[in-house]
């Protein structure tokens, strides 16, 4: 069992050096600054659905609802999530393995995304690119928008070589050892994202960048849209999988227990890698040009993506139950109430998981072709993704920030009570908002429409039946404003708190059934213990290269027949700037 310990290998430093902490902190600050702007604008869109048009009062900062919505979607969906993820998926594996990451690459990642973000902000705030976060051609924004986004996408891929390098260095010292869990999950996520980013990458570099620069005159809208959803579906797993990393590998420890199944965590990530990629065109059930046969196959594959999430629900629920029972919880729900609810980081993540149950159920509706027809592009859809990425991911990242800021800065967290309040406000606000959005979607209220700008009589005639749900949407938005204010007071206060006497450790959890997951904190050396009885499943899944290659083949097999008619019937559409 200790075969690899005694080879005279110097134990790597357990503490991250100051440069690593500073860089991780920079990722957090960039990401949460983006969310601050995005979340500040969000409730304006909620008020819009309640019939209240706030935009006339926002000149000259924001001209229109659609400009505000573009800023909201791009900053929250891309910038916030990418910065946090590209930080966490390097920092956590490096700390798990006790190795130093390639700092030059990691800083290049930060710098590239930062420059891209500034370009996007310029293009969005001058109202030259109010094309929303989906930027479907032939709507035509400014070159700054597309080039900025290109830089953000390129930057977001740089953690992949960093994680693979960490894993290779660690494995070189320990032949036959299984990749530690956090590193495995991080590598699987980044490999998934590599394949996913190819779609939007091609759309940007081949279609939109040259078009926006004036090198080409026309664009094919359907090819652009299909390439977008190649990325646009798996991007939801790029939002979600980093949250899963925290739920599987950190939260059980924070709650006072253990992860009940390490192999199931690996299986989940492997299945997400495979299933999330070939199914992007299920966002196009209502598009012409794609054969109904393929749509049927996509529906089947899409429902398969629910399997890893259902496994996750079981494994994480059980891990929390174990923690709750250790804390003295009894009976059917006693374990749940016995969880450390006063810890804002735990509360944020458990509430995020609860919300995600409804998010997953709604996702099955969207993925079921015939039900999707009723809700496609109605407010149901943003209702859905505000309780997935907008709550499951965002609240998990907020929960991570609550322990990570003190860990990185060595400063005391600001007002744990206000932190707890921000978490509950976000949960309640988003629940009310999402209930209203789902419900009004069933009345056919379209997503992302400036309905408050309509003459009141038209608004009442067409959407009057959805009056109550639309009021809930607006009310949820107002509660979310309070949540945002509370959270950012805590965030900013934690950056400038008093110095702590003892450092805050990363809460790596241990797993049942041997030491397949590695627990590193201040008192234990980095993961140097080879597992005596490797799970055969975990061993099999450690071949990430083979899994990636298989996924790439399946993805190509799914997309070649979808693209074929579009490539053989090209459309030359001119650009439109109509906002």
């Amino acid at each position, binding site marked *: 069992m200790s075969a690899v310990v005694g080879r005279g290998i110097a134990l790597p430093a357990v503490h991250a050096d100051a440069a690593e902490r500073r860089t991780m902190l920079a990722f957090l600050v960039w990401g949460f600054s983006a969310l601050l702007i995005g979340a500040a604008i969000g409730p304006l869109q909620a008020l819009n659905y309640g019939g209240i048009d706030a935009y006339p009062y926002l000149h000259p900062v924001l001209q229109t609802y*659609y400009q505000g919505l573009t800023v909201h979607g791009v900053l929250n969906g891309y910038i916030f999530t990418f910065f946090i993820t590209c930080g966490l998926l390097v920092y956590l594996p490096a700390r798990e393995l006790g190795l130093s990451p390639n700092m030059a690459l990691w800083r290049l990642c930060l710098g590239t995304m930062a420059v891209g973000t500034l370009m996007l902000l310029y293009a969005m705030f001058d109202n030259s690119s109010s094309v929303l976060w989906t930027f*479907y051609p*032939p*709507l035509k924004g400014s070159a700054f928008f597309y080039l900025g986004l290109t830089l953000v996408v390129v930057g977001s891929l740089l953690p992949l070589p960093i994680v693979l390098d960490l894993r290779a260095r660690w494995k070189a010292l320990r032949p036959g050892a299984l990749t530690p869990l956090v590193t495995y999950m991080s590598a699987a996520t980044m490999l998934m994202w590599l394949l996913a980013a190819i779609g939007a990458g091609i759309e940007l570099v081949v279609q939109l960048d040259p078009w926006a620069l004036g090198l080409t005159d026309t664009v*094919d*809208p*359907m090819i652009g*849209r299909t390439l977008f959803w190649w990325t646009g579906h798996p991007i939801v797993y790029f939002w979600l999988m980093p949250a899963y990393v925290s739920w599987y590998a950190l939260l059980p420890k924070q709650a006072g227990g253990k992860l*009940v*199944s390490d192999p*199931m965590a690996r299986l989940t990530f492997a299945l997400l890698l495979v299933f999330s990629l070939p199914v992007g065109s299920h966002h*196009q059930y*209502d*598009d*012409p*040009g*794609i054969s*109904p046969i393929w*749509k*049927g196959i996509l*529906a*089947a594959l899409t429902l*398969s993506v*629910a*399997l890893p999430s*259902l*496994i996750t629900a*079981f494994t994480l629920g*059980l891990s929390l139950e*174990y923690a709750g*029972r*250790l804390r003295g919880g009894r009976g059917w729900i006693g374990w749940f109430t016995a969880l450390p609810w006063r810890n804002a980081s735990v509360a944020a993540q458990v509430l995020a998981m609860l919300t995600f149950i409804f998010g997953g159920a709604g996702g*099955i509706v969207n993925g*079921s*072709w*015939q*039900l999707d*027809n*009723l809700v*496609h*592009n*109605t407010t149901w859809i943003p209702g859905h993704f505000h309780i997935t990425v907008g709550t499951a991911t965002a609240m998990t990242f907020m929960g991570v920030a609550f322990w990570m800021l003190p860990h990185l800065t060595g400063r005391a967290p600001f007002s744990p009570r206000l932190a707890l309040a921000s978490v509950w406000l976000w949960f309640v606000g988003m629940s009310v908002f999402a209930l209203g959005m789902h419900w009004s979607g069933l*009345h*056919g209220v*379209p997503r*992302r*429409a*400036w309905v408050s700008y309509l003459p009141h009589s*038209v608004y009442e005639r*067409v959407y009057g039946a959805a009056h109550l749900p639309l009021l809930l949407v607006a009310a949820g938005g107002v509660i979310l404003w309070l949540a945002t204010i509370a959270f950012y007071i805590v965030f900013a206060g934690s950056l400038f708190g008093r110095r702590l006497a003892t450092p805050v450790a990363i809460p790596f959890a*241990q797993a*049942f059934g041997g030491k397949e997951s590695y*627990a590193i904190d201040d008192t234990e050396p980095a993961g140097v213990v080879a597992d005596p009885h490797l799970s055969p499943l975990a061993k099999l899944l450690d071949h990430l290269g083979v899994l990636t290659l298989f996924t790439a083949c399946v993805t190509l097999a799914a997309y070649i027949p979808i693209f074929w008619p579009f490539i053989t*019937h*090209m*459309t*030359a559409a001119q650009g*439109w700037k*109509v*906002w």
Partner: protein
Amino acid sequence: MSDSAAPPGFEEAFHQAAERHERVWVFIAIVLLSLLMAGTLFFVVLDYGVVVQTDGYRADPASVATTPPFADAALVRTGPNAYAVHMLAHLWTWTPSPLHVPQGAAITFYVTSSDVLHGFEVQGTTINVTAVPGIVGSVTYTFAHPGTYYIICNEFCGIEHQAMIGRIIVDPARPA
């Protein structure tokens, strides 16, 4: 690592129960998803106005506005109780609108756009077709009830997107 102060044997017993329940759970999940799949395809095979077919491609999307069949389109009879209409989406109107259709007849909508993407959603029905410049999609639907239905553009198309609302008026069938 001071937590996890489990009583002796507790972790072992918990782990064994977990492995047993895990298998049951995965089995239930797979059965559930298979049933959902079968249900989805059942409804789609019967169509109900859900399935979007492809009617053709146009290299120059702007030209459809001025050439038949989309120019000056109207409801045409195609069978004993079947009608068709070519519906053009363009900034920021639906043509033809308002459109009168008979109750209880199979109506085929051929939908395209001459400029940017639009979304052809008929409120209160399963009709939901992306209007793509360069591609004509079609869907067939039977209105069971008379009344006014709103065509709502549900794909962002610019500053007047919210006002791109058309009307379909379903006229009551004459009593037989």
